[in-house]
């Protein structure tokens, strides 16, 4: 059983060594032109297996497109010209990186949008709690993000940075044994203080 597995893994490893793109491709003689062809090949989606670039794909059509890219580069075309040529024939979908244009603004803005929304949610959440009279919300937030150590004394609300120091020291001493057990050397408190500096 074990030997069978070992054989299987050896086989997988050997297959991984076979470079897919080099099977019947003829690289351009000029290394700088070949480098351009390779980097352009990463931009184009294989028309057969659509989640691969033409460089990764072993499909016939992908190899033909790689060859076309090489031929155009050898003929003195610029990268822009090659991209425009292919895009005119296959549409925007051939580009693995969606172009920044009117119908993709939302797509490109979405990470920022989601970050903004979540930041807004956190802000509103904290603000609500401040309004409710819970003055140590930031402390709670910190405690929440650590989750491991518990502030021993809930009665004293902490608002200034100095107020957090004992809390952090407490965390430090509570967590240090675990950090040591996990093989870490650095004091956890240093990290916590650094975070507090950002948040307070």
């Amino acid at each position, binding site marked *: 059983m074990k030997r069978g597995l070992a054989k299987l893994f050896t086989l997988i490893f050997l297959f991984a060594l076979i470079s897919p793109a080099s099977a019947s491709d003829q690289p351009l003689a000029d290394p700088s032109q070949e480098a351009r062809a390779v980097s352009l090949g990463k931009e184009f989606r294989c*028309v*057969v297996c*659509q989640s691969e670039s033409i460089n990764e794909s072993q499909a*016939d*059509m992908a190899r*033909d*497109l790689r060859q*076309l890219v090489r031929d155009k580069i050898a003929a003195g075309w610029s990268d822009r010209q090659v991209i425009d040529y292919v895009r005119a*024939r*296959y*549409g*925007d*979908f*051939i580009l693995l990186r969606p172009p920044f244009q009117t119908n993709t603004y939302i797509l490109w803005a979405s990470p920022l949008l989601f970050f903004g929304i979540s930041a807004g*949610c956190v802000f509103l*959440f904290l603000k609500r709690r401040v309004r409710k009279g819970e003055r140590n919300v930031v402390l709670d937030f910190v405690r929440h993000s650590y989750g491991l150590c518990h502030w021993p004394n809930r009665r004293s609300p902490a608002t200034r940075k100095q107020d957090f120091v004992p809390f952090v020291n407490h965390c430090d001493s509570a967590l240090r044994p675990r950090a040591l057990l996990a093989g870490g050397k650095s004091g956890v408190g240093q990290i916590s203080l650094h975070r507090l500096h950002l948040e307070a």
Partner: protein
Amino acid sequence: MKWPLFLPLIVFACLIAALVLALAHGDGGSNKFALHMNEFAPAIQLPVAGKTDARFSTKEWIGHPYLINFFASWCVPCHAEHDYLLELAGEHIPIIGIAFKDKVKAVKDFLLKDGNPFVTVADDRNGRTGLDWGVTGVPETFVIDAAGVIRFHQVGPLTEDIIQQQLLPAWKGLKK
């Protein structure tokens, strides 16, 4: 009510709803590459399959509407649509076959055995003409009008429905 507690649930429900809607109404991930409609067809200059002296050129067809069919003997869906092509040819629609990345002998055997719907078969041995037309595979079929403009583009095999509802109306529209 502690609505922030339910907020993630609501967002998640919205996400699921959006995905289900996309599944139900989406096109099932069919061809997203460009369909070529109402564009000038790229000029073709290819040897006629099996003939060393004859060449096929789309220039000679300016003034006449015709069909272009990219096919190959090794392509299974091409065999599936072959009878439809024969029917169209029987209705005196000129179809030009582009043998895509195929051997002349294999093409010849295929057409001798199953019948030849093509007025000409051009030999696109290296597939470069296919790439020039933005073909993502075979078969693909184009309706070209008298001015050389593509009026219909089918990716994949023709079916009865596609012919009756799309191809033939497009073809008849040219005749008027």
